[in-house]
């Protein structure tokens, strides 16, 4: 309760003072890898447009393929709003059921599942640069002590997914891998 009061206090008073618009205590110069990955995944939604029939659903469906640290952590995104729509997190979907998701975080990338998803408007996110060599769309890659990401445009474009320029600009590399 007190946290909330402080947060709004920060927002109201301190933020204008310092000419910033973000909430008060979120600044981080370091954080756990899991936290950074989850925040990246959340942010990706802001820069991606799905084809109209998928985009027009009432909420964004974010899925995970297995139970792991990141997948479990994704639960905290459940109910958050992004681009005016609520996020719904599903960790119990497997195989073909993943086709209905907007975005899937692959804790254990499986080439067969990735190939299957690569013909649906699903943005797959996984770890490492190799991820996008096997039909994945966004790979989270370590860069020194920080985290960056690489993008494979081929499956996205083939399925009518638009990745906006700011995200492409910030990616470490953008490729078109068949």
């Amino acid at each position: 309760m007190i946290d909330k009061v402080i947060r709004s206090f920060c927002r109201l008073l301190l933020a204008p003072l310092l000419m910033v618009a973000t909430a008060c205590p979120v600044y981080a110069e370091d954080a756990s890898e899991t936290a950074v990955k989850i925040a990246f995944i959340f942010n990706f939604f802001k820069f991606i447009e799905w084809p109209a029939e998928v985009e027009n659903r009432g909420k964004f469906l974010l899925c995970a393929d297995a139970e792991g640290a990141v997948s479990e952590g994704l639960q905290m995104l459940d109910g958050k709003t992004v681009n005016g729509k609520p996020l719904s997190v599903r960790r119990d979907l497997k195989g073909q059921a993943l086709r209905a998701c907007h975005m899937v975080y692959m804790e254990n990338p499986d080439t067969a599942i990735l190939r299957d998803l690569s013909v649906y408007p699903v943005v797959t996110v996984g770890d490492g640069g190799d991820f996008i060599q096997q039909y994945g769309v966004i790979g989270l890659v370590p860069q020194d002590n920080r985290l960056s990401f690489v993008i494979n445009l081929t499956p996205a474009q083939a399925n009518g997914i638009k990745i906006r320029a700011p995200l492409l600009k910030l990616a470490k590399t953008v490729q078109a891998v068949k």
Partner: protein
Amino acid sequence: MSRLKLSAPIFAITLLSSSGLATADNAAIEDLTDLSIEELLNVDVISASRLGQKASQAPSSVSVLTATDIRTFGWRTLADALNAMPGLFTTNDRNYSFLGVRGFIKANDYNSRVLIMIDGQRMNENIYDTGNIAQEFMLDMDLVERIEFIPGSGSSIYGANAFLGLINVITKKGKAINGVQLAGDVGSFDTYKGRVSYGKQFGNGADVLVSASHYDSGGVENLYFSAYDTPATNNGIAHNVDAERTDRLLGRVQFKEFTLSGGFVDRFKRVPTAAYGQIFNDPGNYTVDKQVFGNLKYEKSLDDKTTLLLSSFFQDYEYHAEDAYDFGERIVTRDKTSGSWWGGDAQLTTRAFDRHRLILGVEYQYDQRQFQKTFDIDPYYLYGQTNRNGHRVEAYLQDDIQLTDELIFSAGLRFDYHHMIKHMPLNPRLGLIWNPLVSTTFKLLYSSTFRAPNAAELDYNNYYFSVNPPLHEERIKSYEGIVEWRAPEGLKLSAALFYNDISQLLEANEATNDLLANSHSHHIYGAEWTVEKRWYGGRLLKASHTYSRVDDEGDHSDASVGLPHNIFKLHYAEPLFNNTLQLGVENIYIDQRLTWQGGVADAYDLVNINLRADRIIENVDLLFGVYNLFDSRYEMLGNGVHEILPMNGREFRLKLQLTL
């Protein structure tokens, strides 16, 4: 007898015993979703082995430096990085580097009063308790992910040697290297360094890091020492006797709950100072320090509230040195010291009880060998030879109790059995942490601890004076009050008041007839403030000021020798040319210091600048540094015949790194 060095015994390196620092704590994941992608790209990712809790809730004040800081400011050694920490300062005698901590420094103590750890494993060795920090330190700085410093006697779980503070150096994961990395440095005074590393995280989660590096410096070609300014001793010029070489190896494999790691360092240094009557300008004066460790760690989350950490280790340390003396003919005296020790520890961290975070653990170390020998090589003459062995057992308990949403009470107790002291000390630790606002934390901390006389100290009197008075442990009680304020957008302010009550300090001086004895009490008090502001995109401004004073209850007052009353540090980093270059400017001001002889070493202001260009072309990182930009002839306190030692002037370094 006059040929024996009157210095306190020389140093060493060493050992392990992992303690509570490296505890994973799967507490709630931070919510960073308010950060933008650009901001996320600038967040340093840290592994689990940090303090196990948010710094603002830790029952201590923690300073942290990251790999990014190390590259931005071009720190070449751990000593360089520690010199940037609030409250710490380093000196060197052209062989070893020594740490001063908040109003306390004892030259020649080889940092035995500071606990130095790598990934939670103690590195102070078992003969001189040395905590090495410069080129003689185990790790290549390129392999460091984070450096954590906690001042004060954080005794309850951190254990022996954490008398003035503790430093935990966390190594990078293989995936931070992500491939094969080659790095080469060229620097002033014919200094070269090369490193080859391989790091990778495999699909099955296994993380591997292996690295080898070699450092070679010709040193300063001609060093002038006024104490030897006579025609018979080359007019005080020591010519080509400042060389230093270090080889390092490190390997680590992490898979599931297991981490196996090992490291090796071998450092050679010619000693140009002839501080204790050695033949001046003789290339035969040198020291060698070697240390090796192996460690197997098992870390398991028993459930979502409880973590178990088990580890076992061994370490080996070897020091040898030669000193040439003129006794009518040139006689070379050799010190030969070796230590080995092994042990293990177990630690349980649990939140199973509502509103409690409980840490309990035991550590065991067997000192298998603590061997010292000094002799003339030819004709052979043995001055002394000793060996020891024995057990150390430590048990500790700490409970952080969440009294209310805003108030945490932390209580800890540590019990020690140590074969080098006669009784079994019990030391408490108390802390009160109050978070009245999300942004503001108040901490009140009290702790006490001890430092047992080390093997070199125990044998010192017998060695040099053939008497054997009992020696007791040194004691410290440390009090600290801290205010921290974390404002929006990366602004942090903190202020601390500290008081350290040190008694039974082991010293050899006139008052003790040059015998080593538990003589003095020191009362150290002071204040410290820091300001830090980080901007998104990499700009950073950090300033700190530490003021300290010391009262000495002994009649021979040397407590303030070597101590600067004021330390001021400023760090500024600025991204240039759309972030292709990062400029780092470091300014370290150290106040004047009293010398042993009653004189004064002048205050100095040291300015270092560094430029780093990450990925200047694909896979290539560049670093260019100028150290001591204004070519200041700054002074450190000397030892033996030297009242003051002038340090090096301006130095350059260029470093190139290739990642494949």
